[in-house]
């Protein structure tokens, strides 16, 4: 094992890890605010990426505009999902599984719609700094990947500030921790839940726009990302955005190192086994609060 190979695998693991973590971050935001597992998070990212692609390619507008379009599309979609899927389920007293299944249905719908419109091909979104690579010990890392890491970290910090220091953030947390108590002090719990979903959608759309240059847009991208993001979020304790990123990076690194040190065929076996071991050994996840047992 050369230094180059080790460094390359760590860089790849880090990059993929932040990809998973960004999706996990969205799942954590929505769970924190609404106590709902959103099976559509990866598809919010897919929608963000698709809209950015359409705006950049079909309308020919510059990339920054496309990025804003993608992020907005994610937020709008999430808002609609909350109104059309989540609210009716809540009104009819759905169980936890109902929310999971209804968002799963939404994920299938988005995936099918992208398949219908785009077909089975994959599409490329240009990244920040194009395809430029950075050389580290003769291993390569895309400039865009570095930006991905920087922006993800910024998002985590912004969220932390938002929940801790703004009235809106505090209201959103309150409605999720104790809906009845929040109602009595005048917080519009329903509205807070809509905001939570919208915030999750914005994070998702941003994730899509940042992730697409690395992994290509294609119709199956949504569910695959959701699975990985789910693992990342759970490892991180399900309610902590920072934990989700950390969980994602852990997962990404384990995958990469498993390929390089053990074998590429058994990568998922190693990663998934480690996931199970970590969950059994640390019931709160890596950054969750005590008393939570995996939700």
């Amino acid at each position: 094992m050369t230094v180059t190979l080790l460094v390359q695998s760590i860089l790849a693991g880090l990059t993929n890890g932040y990809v998973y973590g960004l999706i996990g971050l969205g799942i954590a935001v929505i769970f924190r605010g609404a106590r709902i597992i959103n099976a559509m998070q990866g598809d919010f990212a897919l929608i963000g990426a698709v809209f950015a692609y359409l705006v950049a390619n079909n309308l020919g507008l510059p990339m920054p505009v496309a990025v804003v379009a993608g992020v907005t599309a994610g937020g709008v979609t999430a808002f609609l999902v909350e109104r059309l899927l989540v609210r009716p389920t809540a009104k009819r007293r759905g169980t936890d599984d109902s929310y999971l299944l209804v968002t799963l249905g939404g994920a299938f719908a988005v995936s099918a719609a992208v398949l219908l419109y785009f077909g089975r091909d994959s599409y490329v979104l240009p990244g920040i700094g194009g395809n430029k690579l950075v050389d580290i010990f003769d291993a390569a890392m895309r400039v865009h990947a570095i930006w991905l890491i920087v922006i993800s970290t910024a998002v985590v910090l912004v969220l932390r500030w938002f929940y801790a220091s703004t009235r809106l953030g505090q209201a959103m947390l309150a409605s999720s921790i104790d809906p009845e108590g929040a109602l009595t002090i005048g917080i519009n719990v329903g509205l807070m839940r809509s905001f939570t979903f919208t915030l999750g959608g914005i994070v998702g759309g941003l994730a899509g726009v940042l992730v697409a240059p690395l992994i290509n847009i294609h119709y199956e991208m949504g569910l695959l990302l959701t699975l990985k993001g789910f693992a990342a979020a759970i490892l991180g304790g399900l309610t902590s955005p920072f934990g989700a990123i950390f969980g994602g990076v852990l997962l990404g690194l384990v995958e990469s190192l498993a390929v390089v040190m053990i074998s590429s065929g058994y990568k998922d076996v190693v990663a998934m086994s480690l996931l199970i071991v970590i969950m059994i050994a640390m019931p709160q996840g890596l950054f969750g609060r005590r008393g939570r047992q995996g939700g």
Partner: protein
Amino acid sequence: MAELCFTGLGPKIELSYKSLYHLLPPQELNARAMLEYVTKELKVKKIGILHDTGYGQVVTNQLNGLREKYGVEFSGVEKFEVGASDVTAQAAKIRAVNPDVVFVIATSAVPFRNVRQVKIEQPIVSAIGSATYDYVRGFGEYADNIVFPEFVVGEDPKDSQKEFVAAFQKEYNAVPKNFEAAAWDAVHIIAKAIEKAGPTATPKDIAAAMRGPQAGAMANYDFSNEDQTGIEMSSYVFSKLTKGKFERLQFTTK
């Protein structure tokens, strides 16, 4: 009733069918074509293989079976799952063994991009499944220095293919490749068989009418052959993808 399929020979159970005709070569032939090119033209000894667990695995199994015959060494063989979004780690492992050439056998563009991104400079040889313009678009700026053993290079067709290529270009204003040619051949073979068998023919008669040598645009078939395809090595042409364009190479196989 005859069934024409657009895949190479698959699970052994297919051999028990009498009228199952394949318009694409078995993976063993594809593997042989790849090895012919790298041993006879590039004269290599060490090969790295990056393949997916579906189509890539099937071809790689055949490559493993032919390894000794061609006297080459597979110094690195790495695999990834079919929908994988990133295979940088696997590509880096291939780079570390420093092969003379890299086989990339997959149904997505991802491995091709990752291979170049980890700075593998060696030539890439792939399989017919990736030789389409959709893949070229997916490769982006990495659509360069990739060799395909295939059958139709629309920009420079063989004499037997010129009629098809001209007709396709006139109708669709685009350049055809292997799968389009296979479709053309399939329809023509069916039409010829119906003509030969006559207006009162049963499906069995039509199937029998097809069961023999057939000359096509993509390749020459012989459905009475035991691999249900009958494509010969001599039907292969080798193309090199250079800056997003396919060029027909001089190299041929017998």
